[in-house]
């Protein structure tokens, strides 16, 4: 009788609700900049946040994060422009 071994779970994270794994560049340790690059936001324009049970935690682009499977990140942009507006925000 053959015993089935549990399949090793591949390292993966979610950025903006999309799944990324090692083939996409996920590594055991990643900087905020590397996480932002997964969704093609340049480091100088990126705002990276880790979603935790206590809320969002800012991750500076230079900070190294020890990646755990299934972590969720939000990556937003510093530069966001609307169309023509009658007043300045």
């Amino acid at each position, binding site marked *: 009788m053959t015993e089935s071994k549990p399949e090793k779970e591949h390292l993966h994270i*979610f950025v903006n609700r*999309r799944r990324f794994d090692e083939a996409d560049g996920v590594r055991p340790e990643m900087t905020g900049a590397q996480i932002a690059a997964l969704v093609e*936001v340049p480091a100088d324009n990126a705002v990276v946040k880790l979603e935790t049970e206590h809320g969002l935690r800012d991750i500076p682009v230079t900070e190294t994060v020890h990646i755990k499977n299934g972590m969720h990140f939000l990556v*937003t*942009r510093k530069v*966001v*422009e*609307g*169309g023509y*507006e009658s007043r300045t925000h």
Partner: protein
Amino acid sequence: MNRERIERELTILRDGGQLAELVVNGEPVVLYRNVPTDGERYGLPAVTDVVVPVPSGYAAAAIDLAGLPAGSPLLPRLKGGTNVQRVVSVDGRQWQLVSYHPHNGGGGPPWDQMKHGFHTYFDHLIAWLHRIC
């Protein structure tokens, strides 16, 4: 409208826990539910539903605009939020579309139909909803 393509794109988000659906009774739109905002720190909603029209000729035509429930307190605080476009009726609610063009000067990359879609447009919605003025 390439319905199969849109459903594939939305499945990517659903697999990551994001509710999003294609609504086609009326003007076709994608309805994203409970999208996180940065509003809480300003006493505004921490999440909101968002609609995005499916452009005629998608995916050759770029996705554009975004809409929140009419009267949302977030609208006047968002980039482009005071430049109102049309109102659409979706899911039994009225939605105000506003002038946000991430692929055309709004801060995102130029539209590339080979890699962009309603799954990547979610990136731009989050960015928009996290730049509250």
